[in-house]
């Protein structure tokens, strides 16, 4: 009897060890992130102190702390699996790309993995000094004159990191450093898809820079698609 128990335990461990982070033809979690209420007004950005950037925007850019889409869609929400999937032991070989263009950070929210290469480019005629503000990772800021090659950095701990430019106070962005590849950042319609999930119980978190995060649990048993929606409460101030 004990031998059988040991044998079964051995099989379970072997099965777990062979389980990869993502499986083709696995299950999918998808859904939409929306808001209810009135979000804070986004203000136009006056870039007159930096004429080379100001002239790139015929209509001034607005702040991007709450970006909305049609039908109350909420953009720039990072939806990711925080529990239930193993951490990636090696990060993707492709670098995550962040650029400074027209005195704006693109994309506004960049999601990538722990120890994944982060490449920061300056496409502007002016110098920037990028300053991410982590609380657990190492804090640094780097000057980047125009025409210099992209900077390369990486973070070794998962964290949501606000990013600012020391020279241009209106520039603002976010890094989402995550533990595995199961993540998506919502865009226009507010929708997200997390595919290739092996069977299991998952904790999904939706994070927004102004509204914080929300958590939901979902169980995948085969290759079905489960719908998980998030609704954030928006406030005018």
């Amino acid at each position: 009897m004990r031998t059988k128990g040991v044998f079964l335990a051995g099989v379970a461990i072997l099965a777990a060890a062979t389980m990869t982070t993502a499986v083709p033809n696995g299950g999918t979690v998808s859904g939409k992130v929306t808001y209810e209420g009135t979000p804070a007004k986004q203000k136009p950005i006056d870039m007159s102190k930096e004429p080379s950037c100001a002239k790139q925007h015929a209509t001034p850019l607005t702040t991007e702390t709450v970006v909305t889409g049609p039908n109350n869609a909420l953009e720039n929400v990072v939806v990711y699996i925080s529990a239930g999937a193993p951490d990636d032991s090696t990060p993707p070989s492709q670098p995550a790309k962040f650029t400074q263009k027209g005195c704006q950070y693109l994309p506004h929210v960049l999601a990538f993995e722990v120890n994944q290469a982060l490449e920061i480019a300056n496409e502007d005629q002016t110098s920037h000094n990028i300053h991410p503000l982590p609380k657990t990772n190492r804090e640094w800021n780097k000057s980047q004159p125009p025409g210099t090659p992209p900077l390369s950095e990486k973070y070794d701990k998962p964290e949501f990191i606000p990013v600012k430019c020391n020279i241009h106070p209106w520039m603002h962005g976010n890094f989402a450093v995550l533990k595995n590849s199961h993540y998506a950042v919502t865009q226009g319609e507010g929708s997200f898809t997390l595919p290739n999930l092996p069977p299991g119980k998952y904790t999904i978190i939706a994070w927004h820079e102004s509204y914080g995060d929300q958590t939901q649990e979902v169980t995948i048993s085969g290759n079905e698609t489960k719908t998980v929606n998030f609704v954030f409460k928006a406030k005018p101030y």
Partner: protein
Amino acid sequence: MGKFFAVVLTLIALASAYPIVTHMYVQPVDISTHGHAIDEQLSDTMAEAGFAFLGAQLLLAFFVWRFSNRKNGSKVKHLPGGAKLMVATAFIFVGTEVLALGVLGQKAWAEVYFTAPKQDALQIQSQAGQFAFYFRYPGADGKFAPLHPDKIDEGNGNYFGLDLANDVEARDDIVTAELAIPVNREIHLLMHAKDVGHSFYVRELRIQQDFVPGLDLSVHFTATKTGKYEIVCTQLCGLGHYNMKAYLNVLSQDDFDKWLKEKASEQ
């Protein structure tokens, strides 16, 4: 050789003084009610320094001319009183010059820095922070809401740290990156330093004032010509000091009212 040196010295002295005396140096257009007084003071300073300079150089040239090619062994005469008299003379000359400049200039200085602004001056607050200037107008309630540094959120455009959620009087404050003012109206510019020392300088206004962290400073001025003028930071404040500037936009009263209304709608 000595006499040649004396001639060259005299020519250089005269050539240096010429552009000053004929006011060949160009000054930026004066758009301020106190600009004329400041410019006069500058001219007076140039004149006084110029006379002293010319006097000293010509005196030097005279001595070089007179006493060059002296034969070896000839007696050197000394001015009576020796060094003590020389030093005393220097003190008196330079002292008088400096005192004169001070006495003549104190009126211009007092007009700018020691007189209070008029009661109906338009109050605008400016904040200097690494590395941009932002400005705040009090809005319809005529009051500046309190500042909360912990609420500063530049990604949201909240550069001053207004607590919009809790301070109702903050909701009508108008925050801009441009200092627009109506022409011919006295402006009382309150100055708040967000982090380190900065300085407000508009050369056409003939005004410069440091922002000092922790001090409530202000300047007052009246602009007399419409147009766009540069505000530059003139106190080294960090790696972005070279990039720190804003624009003063002097508008007609009507245009200013329109501008302020537009900015209010963007808040």
